[in-house]
């Protein structure tokens, strides 16, 4: 009885967003009389950082400090329409909608400032610190706050902007089968090293290395956070989680967290990530976003690593000890495959 090491890899081309009836997101932005801006979205931040990313995108486009932007994602009844937070579309779709809304709001902001300064709006720039001034003449300036107040109480103007980002539905060409459902692809490659015990069938993930190409990384810390957390979920899906019973009788199916297996803090594997940035031409500041692909390559890489270690090809998830042991028995013993790519 022995423990066998194996290495597996997987690569992904990951489409951002989807093609069901087009894939629109809307954003509305307005200024408050204190010169701060509210961004209204109906998309939900599930913890992936969409509020933070859209806040950065709005502040950068408006030309105001990030502290002065509040993103409100509370309510799909009262907010502008959005397809939702899924398909890794948040950064790309909502980010683009926010840019469009922020550009329109910025236009009105500069017009209102121009009226106060008695200059042409085209000559105005923002300093990103809450001031608007004449290009090349920083002393001829007005604060965003004073502009918002003048618009509200004197000029009778709404500093606001509407934005939508839509990738129209792409239908299949009946002749060629061709379609163009997507405009932005992210990419990743991941290598997993595992150890398989041929007596217990247990798999230990020893470590993982990956490279992710995600377009412009709008918030590096949050990208890292998603990739680390997502990889854990990938391990969990590859080796543990299933709503199906492990045995044919449904009575053995998991009903709660006692039976629905998930790895705990003691089961995590060392993981290093290289992030490559190739800005997407149609992304917000070039961003595509990590999303679901944080977990995706982990599953096939682990399945390949298990095959490499003991020669058992498990084709359905999760890769349980039982399936591995049955495979080893069917093969008449563990059949380690050739190693590639150096030592673990």
């Amino acid at each position, binding site marked *: 009885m022995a423990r066998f090491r194996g290495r597996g890899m997987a690569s992904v081309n990951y489409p951002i967003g989807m093609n069901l009836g087009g894939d629109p997101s809307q954003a509305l932005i307005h200024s408050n009389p204190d010169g701060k801006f509210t961004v209204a979205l109906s998309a939900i931040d*599930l*913890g*992936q*950082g969409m509020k933070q990313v859209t806040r950065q995108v709005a502040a950068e486009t408006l030309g105001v400090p990030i502290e002065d932007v509040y993103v409100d994602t509370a309510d799909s009844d009262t907010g502008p329409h959005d397809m939702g937070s899924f398909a890794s579309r948040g950064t790309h779709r909502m980010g683009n909608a926010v840019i469009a809304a922020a550009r329109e709001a910025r236009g009105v902001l500069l017009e209102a400032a121009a009226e106060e300064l008695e200059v042409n709006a085209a000559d105005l720039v923002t300093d990103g610190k809450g001031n608007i001034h004449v290009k090349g003449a920083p002393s001829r300036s007005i604060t965003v706050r004073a502009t918002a107040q003048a618009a509200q109480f004197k000029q009778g103007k709404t500093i606001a902007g509407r934005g939508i980002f839509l990738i129209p539905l792409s239908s299949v060409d009946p002749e060629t089968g061709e379609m163009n459902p997507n405009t932005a692809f992210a990419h990743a490659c991941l290598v997993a090293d595992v150890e398989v015990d041929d007596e217990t069938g247990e798999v230990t993930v020893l470590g993982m290395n990956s490279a992710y190409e995600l377009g412009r990384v709008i918030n590096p*810390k*949050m990208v*890292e*956070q*998603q990739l*680390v*957390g*997502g*990889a*854990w*979920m990938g391990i969990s899906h590859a080796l543990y989680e299933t709503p199906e019973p492990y045995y044919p009788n449904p009575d053995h199916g998991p009903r*709660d*967290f*006692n039976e629905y297996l*998930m790895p*705990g*803090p*003691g089961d*995590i594997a060392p*993981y290093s990530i290289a992030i490559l940035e190739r800005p997407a031409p149609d992304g917000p500041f070039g961003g595509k976003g990590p999303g679901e692909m944080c977990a995706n390559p982990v599953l096939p890489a682990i399945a390949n690593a298990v095959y490499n270690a003991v020669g058992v090809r498990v084709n359905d998830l999760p890769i349980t000890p039982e399936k591995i042991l049955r495979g080893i028995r069917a093969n008449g013993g563990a059949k380690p495959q050739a190693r590639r790519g150096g030592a673990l």
Partner: protein
Amino acid sequence: MAKVPVQFRLNGSDRAAFADPADNLLTVLRRGLNDFGPKYGCGQGTCGTCSVLVDGELRLACLTLAASCEGASIETVSGMADGPNLHPLQQAFMEHFAAQCGFCTPGMLTAAKALLARNPNPSRDEIIDGIAGNICRCTGYEPIIAAIESVARGAAAGQRR
């Protein structure tokens, strides 16, 4: 069943509520006393997000009878910050991006607080052990471990000074 009065200290203040004798502490904290810090995840002791300290000891509020806490001192995550000043663990969780959806965070912070109270300088394995009763769906645990480690190392360095 007739309700019974329960009195205890909650985050330093005397509080009282009427509870069904079978009510668990989590229900009384959330529904009776509006302390929504501890979360309801599973209600059966497997996720850890309801963790609180009862007389300094880490307990799962969903499995603790409220009536058994009569006269006890209960600490929840809601009492961790000192006014506007975050607890060092909260600060570290923020700096290490140790929360995504945040649903596990109340339990993680409470478990970490209990760990550091009984072992101010835990090893990485002891930290893992300290949060082993808490499930996190989002972070992959690594940032949480790193955050707790940073507070432990900081405190240890402080002690040496």
